[in-house]
C-alpha cells in the first residue's frame, strides 16, 4: 500500500490540477474567514464550544445513559455497537427484519468509517447515497475525499461524464444547473421508492433524547420523512448536554465548514411518526480507547466541519485520497492512528506542523500538537521508518557533542563546495527541485573564535 508521501507525489504529477484543487479549497477557507470575522465574539464562541465538549467527554457515560433513557421514552429503539462490524450487523438485521433490500442514505462519515456500503452490498442490500457529492463519488466508485465536500476533487466536466454514463444525459454537458437538475430527478425517484433511510447525526441532545442532522440539500429529511424505517448512526462523542448548547454549535458549524451562517436544514428528530420505526445506533469503534489517551482524547470534540482540511496547505496540495482513510486531513491524521497505528503511521508525518488547523478549529482541538505527540508514540511503538531511525541516532550523537558537530559541519560544507555531485543528485530528495545552500568559507562559530 502506498503511503501519504507517495500518493501525494502521484497527485502532484498534474500540477495544474493541484493548483485548481488548492485554489478551490482556499476559496472555502476565505469564505470561512469572512464569516468568522463578522462575528464579534467568534473566539469566545469557540472557547464555549470547546468547554461544552470537554464537559461532555469528562462525563460521557452518564450523558449517554441519559440520552438513551430519553430516546427510549420518545419511542426510539437504541442500539449499542462496540465496533464497525457490530454496527454494520445491526443495520443489516433491522433491514432484514423489515424485508428491505434497498436503502437510501444521507451523509454519514461514520458509515464510511465502518465501510457499511460494501458490507450491505455483499449481503444483497443496495445502498444509494443521496447527498449530491456522495452520489457522485459513489457513481465513480471512489470514497469521499473530504468530509463536507465529498467530490471536491472532481471537476464539473468529470461529473458530466459520470452522469452521461450512469444517469443517461448527453455527453459533454458540464453546466452545474443541468447536472444538479439531473441528480435531483434521479434522487426524487430514490426517495419515493425506498422504504428505509439511514442518516448520520451531527448532534444528539442528552436532556431530550433527540438528534439533529444538518444538511444543505434537505436530502436527509426527504429520505427519513418518506421511509418506514429511519436508522440514525452516531459516534458516541456526538452528544451535547442540553438543547440550549446547540445554538453555540449551529453558529460555529456552517461558518467553519463553508462560510454560511447556518446550514439550510438543521432538522431535529425526536420521535418516530405513527407507524414508523426509528433506530439510533451508538457506535464506539475506538472512541473509548481514544478517550483513554490523555494526549489525544480531546480529538473527540470534533464536529466534522472540515475547516482544518480547507486551511491545511498539505491537504490542499495532496488531495483527500492521499490520506487513505475515511477522514482525511489534519483531523483524520490524529484520529486514524488510534484505529490502526501501523496502517496510519505515515499520517501524523504528513504535516509541517504549521498550526493553521488548530487556529480554525471551532472546538479548539490542539491538532498540530497532537500530530507531534502521535509522532513520538508511533516511533516508540516501533512503527516509525527504520532507516530514518538510524540517521536520527547518528544525528542525535553528533548534535549533542560540540566537537563532533564542528567536524561534521566542516565536512558538510566541504562536501557541498568541493563535491557537489555527492549531494546534487536525484537520490537526494532536497536536490530534486531545490539547489543546495552556497557553503560559506567558515562557520559563525569559527569566525567568532578568530575575530572576537
Amino acid at each position, binding site marked *: 500500500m502506498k503511503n501519504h508521501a507517495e500518493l501525494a507525489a502521484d497527485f502532484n504529477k498534474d500540477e495544474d490540477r493541484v493548483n485548481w484543487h488548492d485554489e478551490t479549497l482556499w476559496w472555502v477557507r476565505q469564505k470561512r474567514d469572512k464569516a468568522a470575522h463578522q462575528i464579534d465574539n467568534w473566539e469566545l464562541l469557540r472557547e464555549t464550544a470547546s468547554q461544552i465538549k470537554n464537559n461532555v467527554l469528562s462525563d460521557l457515560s452518564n450523558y449517554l445513559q441519559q440520552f438513551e433513557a430519553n430516546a427510549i421514552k420518545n419511542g426510539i429503539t437504541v442500539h449499542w455497537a462496540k465496533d464497525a462490524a457490530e454496527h454494520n450487523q445491526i443495520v443489516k438485521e433491522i433491514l432484514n427484519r423489515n424485508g428491505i433490500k434497498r436503502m437510501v442514505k444521507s451523509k454519514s462519515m461514520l458509515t464510511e468509517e465502518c465501510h457499511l456500503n460494501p458490507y450491505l452490498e455483499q449481503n444483497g442490500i443496495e445502498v444509494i447515497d443521496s447527498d449530491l457529492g456522495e452520489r457522485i463519488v459513489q457513481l465513480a466508485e471512489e470514497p469521499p475525499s473530504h468530509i463536507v465536500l465529498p467530490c471536491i476533487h472532481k471537476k464539473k466536466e468529470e461529473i458530466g461524464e459520470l452522469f452521461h454514463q450512469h444517469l443517461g444525459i448527453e455527453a459533454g454537458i458540464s453546466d452545474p444547473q443541468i447536472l444538479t437538475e439531473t441528480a435531483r430527478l434521479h434522487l426524487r425517484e430514490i426517495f419515493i421508492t425506498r422504504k428505509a433511510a439511514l442518516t448520520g447525526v451531527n448532534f444528539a441532545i442528552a436532556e431530550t433524547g433527540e438528534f439533529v442532522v444538518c444538511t444543505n440539500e434537505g436530502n436527509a429529511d426527504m429520505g427519513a420523512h418518506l421511509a418506514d424505517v429511519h436508522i440514525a448512526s452516531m459516534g458516541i462523542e456526538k452528544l451535547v448536554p442540553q438543547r440550549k448548547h446547540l445554538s453555540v454549535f449551529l453558529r460555529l458549524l456552517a461558518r467553519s465548514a463553508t462560510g454560511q451562517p447556518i446550514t439550510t436544514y438543521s432538522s431535529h428528530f425526536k420521535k418516530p411518526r405513527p407507524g414508523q420505526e426509528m433506530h439510533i445506533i451508538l457506535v464506539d469503534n475506538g472512541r473509548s480507547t481514544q478517550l483513554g489517551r490523555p494526549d489525544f482524547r480531546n480529538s473527540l470534540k470534533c464536529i466534522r466541519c472540515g475547516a482544518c482540511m480547507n486551511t491545511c496547505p498539505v491537504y490542499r496540495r495532496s488531495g483527500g485520497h492521499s490520506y487513505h482513510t475515511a477522514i482525511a486531513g489534519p483531523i483524520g491524521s490524529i484520529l486514524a492512528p488510534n484505529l490502526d497505528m501501523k496502517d496510519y503511521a505515515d499520517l501524523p508525518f504528513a504535516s509541517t506542523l504549521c498550526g493553521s488547523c488548530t487556529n480554525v478549529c471551532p472546538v479548539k482541538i490542539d491538532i498540530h500538537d497532537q500530530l507531534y505527540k502521535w509522532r513520538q508514540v508511533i516511533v516508540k511503538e516501533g512503527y516509525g521508518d527504520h532507516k530514518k531511525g538510524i540517521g536520527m541516532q547518528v544525528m542525535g550523537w553528533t548534535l549533542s557533542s560540540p566537537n563532533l558537530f564542528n567536524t561534521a559541519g566542516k565536512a558538510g560544507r566541504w562536501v557541498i563546495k568541493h563535491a557537489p555531485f555527492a549531494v546534487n543528485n536525484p537520490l537526494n*530528495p532536497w536536490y530534486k*527541485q531545490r539547489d543546495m545552500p552556497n557553503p560559506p568559507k567558515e562557520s559563525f562559530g569559527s569566525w567568532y573564535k578568530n575575530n572576537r
Partner: protein
Amino acid sequence: MITVALFIPCYIDQFYPNAAKATLQLLEKLGVNVVYPPNQTCCGQPMANSGYEHLAAGCSKLFIENFAEYDYIVSPSGSCVLHIKEHLHPGETKAEADKIHHTIYELTEFLTDVLKIEHLNSSFPHKVGLHQSCHGQRGLKISQMSELNAPYFSKPGKLLGMVKDLELIDLSRPDECCGFGGTFCVSEEAISAKMGKDRISDHIQHHAEFITSADMSCLMHMEGLLNRQKSDVKVIHIAEILNGVAV
C-alpha cells in the same frame, strides 16, 4: 547593561553565518552585552519533530549547560526558540528548563518586547516580502494570525517599518506555510517543494526583490527553489536588514 546569551542554531552557524553576525552586531549596536557560549550546537528539533524526542536528550542537556545561567537568551530563529520553549527535555534539570522557558526570545520579539525598540538607523531601499514562519507566528505569536478574529499586530512587520526606504509588499496569502517543515522537506518532497514554489510565486507576483523572515530555515528552502528557477529574487534574514547591510 543587559547581557544576552546568543543562541545560533546549527544550520545558521554552518550555512548562514551572515545572519548570525548581523544578529550579534545589531544587538551590540543597541547597547546589549552579547555573550556567545562556544559549545552550543542544536536545539534538538530535527530529532524531536521526526518522532525521536528521546534522542534529543543529549541536545537538551548541552543546551541547559550552555544557557541556563543567563537572564536572556536570544536567537535569530523562531522555530528553534519554540522548540526550546515547548520541548526542552527537563530530565533531572527541570528547574533550569523551566527557567529557560521564560528567558529565551526570538530576535524580533526581544527587540520589540524587551528592548522596546522604536527607531532603527538602517536603510534598505528595496521591495521586500515578509515571510511569516509558522513557528514564530503561530507558535511564539510574534504576529497576529489570519485565522483568528483578533486585532492585527506584527513584531517583525513593525521593525521593518522602521527601516528607511524599505517598501513592504502585500501578499495574497500573508501567512501560508512555505512547506519546509524540517525532515518533512525530504520525506514529503513533492508537497514540500510545491508549497515552497507557491509561496515564492506569491512574493514574485507582488514584485518582491527580497524575501525576508525571522526564520532562516524557511528562507533556506525558498532560496533553494529560487536558485533552481534562476530567479533574481533573493532571501535575506531580517537581522541583516535591521542591522543595515550593503547588498
